[in-house]
């Protein structure tokens, strides 16, 4: 799907499609209450009828657009483990690739919020001495997250490099 980083010839592992579900839940949790509040405010303040329609149409249209975009975003995530480096790609509008040597790793975070836990998902984040690195992989299954964490920690220790 992503031809931009194809010249690197990496085999990308996808993230779980349930990440799409998570994004859709979050998007709906934002759009639905926002639309409802606006509609109630317009009705209470007896605003013009056309404004009411604009808000309703925008609110209803935003849902499928966001849902479609969530799927695109999930497909944009990918990671590749090589002998010495981890590659992570993501982003639909702005496409990004981060390549981190295992030896540069300071520590690994595995996190899972309430929605992630309900969906059986976890996120792995690899930290280096640079906050700008942000090698983050969301939407992993807990097993895969644990495997990745252990592998990253082991490789990080084996190849550890000083600053």
């Amino acid at each position, binding site marked *: 799907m992503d031809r*931009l*980083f194809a*010249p690197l010839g990496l085999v990308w592992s996808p993230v779980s499609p349930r990440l799409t579900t998570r994004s859709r839940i979050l998007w709906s949790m934002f759009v639905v209450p926002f639309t409802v509040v606006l509609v109630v405010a317009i009705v209470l303040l007896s605003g013009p009828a056309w404004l009411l329609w604009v808000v309703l149409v925008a609110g209803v249209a935003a849902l499928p657009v966001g849902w479609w975009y969530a799927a695109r975003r999930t497909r944009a995530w990918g990671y590749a483990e090589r002998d010495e480096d981890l590659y992570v790609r993501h982003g639909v509008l702005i496409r*990004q690739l981060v*390549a981190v*040597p295992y030896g540069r790793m300071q520590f690994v975070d595995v996190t899972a919020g309430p929605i992630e836990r309900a969906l059986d998902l976890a996120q792995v984040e690899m930290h*280096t*001495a640079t906050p700008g690195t942000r090698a983050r992989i969301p939407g992993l299954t807990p097993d895969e997250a644990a495997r990745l964490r252990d592998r990253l920690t082991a490789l990080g220790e084996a190849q550890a490099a*000083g*600053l």
Partner: protein
Amino acid sequence: MTRPLEHDFQRVHPISPFLRVGVFVLAGILATWRQVVEDFEAWVLLLTLGAFLAVGLVYGLLSWWFTRFRIDPDELRIDSGVLLRRSRRISIERLQGVDVRQPFLARLFGMAELRFEVAGGSNTEAPLAYLRLDEAHRLRGVLLDRDTAPPAGAAGTPVDEQPVDEGPADEQPVGVEAGDPAENTPTPSPGTAVPGAAVPGAAVPGAAVPGRPAPRYEREIARVDPGWLVVGTLLSTEFIASLVFAFLAVVASVLFGEIAGLALVFPAVLGAGSVLVRGIVQQWGFVLSDVGSGWRLRSGLFDLRSQTVPLDRVQGIVLVEPLLWRPMGWVKVQVDVAGYAGTAAQQGGPSTSTLLPVAPRQLALAVLARLVPGSHPTDVPQRPAPRQARWFRPVGWRYLGVGFADDVVVTTRGWVKRRTDIVPHHKTQSIRVSQGLLQRRLRVVDITFQTTPGPVDAVAKHRPLEEIPEWVWHQLERAADARRLHPGVSPWGTRDPA
């Protein structure tokens, strides 16, 4: 070994509360000056000042009495607090640097404060203030030698391991003796810069002070002429921008009536003033010298600051050349230092990140050659950006470039303010490729060689897609090879786990 390394608990110098009271009185004057000016009544003034003085003195004496410190084998312990007792432990192993600073008032009395930079902490610990200048330097030596010494159990007592080199010089600012208020320029004969030459610092009478460790050495690398500093600051982009802003504010006040314009003039003047203060006052008498364990930066017209950059923790270098400096060929040299992350930005002004505030190109290159021995980063052939880049930068695209040598990767950019970012291969943290919408259309990407936080920002902007493997794949290989050659230092202290 649990015996304290230094004597038991000590207190800071008894003059400290009185110096602090000076600050209190200043605060009192600042808080009440309006009333004093508006309806002057002498007894109100005296009463207020007296109250501030009394409260300040009592508080100062109490807090001085309750503040004690001790150097243990692996930590510095500072107990403080009158009502709420507080015991801070600063792990010596995580100590990235100890800086000796002399605020103006303290400097008049020959006092100094010790500041601690701790790895992993985003901010500087509260300083230990005030100590006699030579005592501050001595403690600094004890703490840092402890840090670079082999772990306990290795041969010899750590305190004895001083870098004894030729030249009976001392790390103390030349000529500054405790209690010498007349001392304002800490260095002899300002001006002449000596690129790369090993100039032994002058011997200091303080070397005879009992209890002082074996003499250290200090060799001057570069000295910034006050003339360069003044002209350079006046011609800096920031100062000119604030002048233009002030000019526009004056024009606006003439056109639209006084009140609106004046509201703008004031911040503009303030901005210009702060640029001058940061550029000239804080960097006055800037001296860069080699002290064995690293490079020492020293500067300040009133507040004297001295900081040491451990050279093996330098992660990247940037040369900045503003438009108006180029006729003179002047350059500013800044570096990223691991472990000094937050402090550089927070305190503003001369931080450990500025190695040379302004210097002729020749001198800057001499300093650069010592930082990156063996290669000439400024001579690395630069690959120009593709023609598509002109859509993003109609003029500046000609100045975009990236290139690599055996040991460094170099990026250049900037038309008005030209900058050259240099990252040694073995210091590369990670590589980021990013492509925005317009960049996708024009088939280019930005490639960032990431280092630890700091002024260095090595971005190869708008590179053609075909170069991605070159700058990601092969660059990572070069970095991996370089890491095997230069194992580097462990981020936590100097003890490498490898």
